[in-house]
């Protein structure tokens, strides 16, 4: 089942992460894309594919226009909101493996703090035409379920009920990630430590989620360049192989949340996705040296550790309590500080950190890291990749 790598990541580019970029989203996209191409040692004219997420506001043709491209042979978007980040690599890898494109940039660039606050209800409300999306929202918004936190909180509450997990258990992962961020100059919370007491005294957002369980709202952009493995060998950076690339939806997903699923205490979509990753790569959780797990909310990290098989159901609180997600733990997790403490770039900053780990250039480097798993948001239609060092 060990497929040869169909694509490799050869370049990564990133803007700074802030609360007010002062620049247009399209400019952030262009900055990230051109930095990623420079990192790879490629020219814009080498690019024939562009992939982003439905969340992103920058059209692929607009990015192509300002990259000065005469033609695109592949362009696409992943759905599922924040679940779709690694899925852009899934699409890009498929395009490269099937000859639809030779070199693809996956990008995501937004001002989702300064231009419109992503965690506020306005993003969801206001559509009065009976579109399918508006009708779907009509089983939530009239009841006050209008923010991402509100959509996912009942899953986390049920997880606590089923397995005895506590708010402190969620807080411990937030504290682990803040410690990583305190060593990462790119992290928004670089200079601000976090204790478990700070977490426990932070205000309630959507019970059981406290402020420091929630990801940030950030301005910023990240882009990754992918090409075929044989071409990657001749480029500037040591290539990072895409060893597995999958997507997943679980039972009774309805809109952004799986609230009608029999068991809300299991991240079933992550399980569907992760099972494919292990089958495609011929690797398992025990082979991973580092994990970048989508942390829209801290309990989602625990539930994904379980769904990916790093531990059994209900065992992640113990894994975190024992230091399992710290740098010398069984699976160092979100070593950039994650979206709680570095920035919320819809998981693209996690993809960038995975590449740094496999190049050996992370500020929180896992010694000898050879394999990484990166996920999109759980509880939403999700995606993920397994990446491997090649040099």
């Amino acid at each position, binding site marked *: 089942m060990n497929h040869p790598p169909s694509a490799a990541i050869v370049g990564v580019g990133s803007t700074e992460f802030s609360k007010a970029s002062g620049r247009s989203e399209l400019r952030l996209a262009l900055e990230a894309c051109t930095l990623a191409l420079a990192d790879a040692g490629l020219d814009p004219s080498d690019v024939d594919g562009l992939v982003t997420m439905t969340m992103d506001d920058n059209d692929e043709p607009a990015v192509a226009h300002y990259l000065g491209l005469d033609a695109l042979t592949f362009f696409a978007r992943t759905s599922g909101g924040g679940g779709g980040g690694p899925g852009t690599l899934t699409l890009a890898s498929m395009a490269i493996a099937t000859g639809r494109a030779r070199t693809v940039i996956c990008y995501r660039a937004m001002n989702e703090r300064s231009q419109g606050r992503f*965690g*506020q*209800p306005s993003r969801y*409300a*206001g*559509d*009065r*035409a*009976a*579109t399918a999306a*508006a*009708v*779907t*929202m*009509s*089983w*939530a*918004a*009239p*009841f*006050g*379920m*209008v*923010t991402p*936190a*509100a959509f996912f*909180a*009942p*899953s986390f*509450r*049920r997880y606590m*009920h089923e397995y005895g997990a506590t708010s402190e258990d969620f807080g411990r992962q937030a504290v682990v990630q803040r410690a990583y961020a305190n060593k990462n100059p790119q992290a928004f919370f670089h200079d601000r430590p976090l204790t478990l007491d700070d977490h426990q005294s932070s*205000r*309630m*957002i*959507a*019970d*059981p*989620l406290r402020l420091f369980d929630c990801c940030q709202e950030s301005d910023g952009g990240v882009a990754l360049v992918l090409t075929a493995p044989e071409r990657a060998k001749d480029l500037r950076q040591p290539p990072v192989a895409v060893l597995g690339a999958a997507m997943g939806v679980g039972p009774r997903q*309805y809109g952004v949340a799986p*609230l*009608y699923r029999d068991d*809300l205490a299991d991240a079933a979509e992550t399980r569907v996705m992760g099972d494919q990753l292990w089958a495609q790569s011929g690797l398992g959780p025990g082979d991973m040296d580092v994990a970048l797990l989508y942390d829209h909310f801290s309990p989602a990290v625990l539930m994904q550790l379980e769904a990916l098989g790093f531990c059994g159901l209900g065992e992640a609180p113990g894994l975190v309590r024992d230091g399992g997600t710290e740098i010398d733990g069984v699976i160092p997790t979100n070593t950039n500080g994650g979206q709680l403490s570095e920035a919320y770039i819809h998981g693209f900053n996690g993809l960038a950190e995975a590449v740094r780990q496999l190049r050996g250039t992370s500020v929180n480097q896992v010694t000898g890291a050879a394999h990484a798993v990166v996920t999109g948001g759980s509880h939403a239609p999700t995606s993920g990749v397994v990446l491997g060092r090649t040099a």
Partner: protein
Amino acid sequence: MTKAPTAGRPRPAVNPDTRFFWDAAFERRLAVQRCSACRALRHPPGPACPRCHSLDWEVSDVSGRGTLYSYTVLHHPPAPGFDGPAVIAVVDLEEGVRMVSNVVGVDPATLTIGEPLEVCFEEHVGWTVPQFRRPAAREAVR
């Protein structure tokens, strides 16, 4: 006690699959879809039966009794149209379908997963929201 929600909640968008639910609520009835072919109940309303794929369905009134499967209390940002924190409930109805709604008239700190609930209705201008409360007898002994 949380205050009752007031006007200004986001109104539901309705289509031919879903209009019956809000029409029933306006008449203070709680109703779900029943598949005309395999008789399975389903919610939220949709065009087809996920079990047998029949497009034929009818409206079935339900008892309005259920249990609390899970919940959240939305403190920040405030839910539009709510005076205080919105108590958002995931309710398992005794007929075997699940419904997202509100629990009203309770101190959210006392909510217990698995506790019994019953439907009640809150009227807004031109529409009515089905929501849930503790059954009267249970609340009286607290």
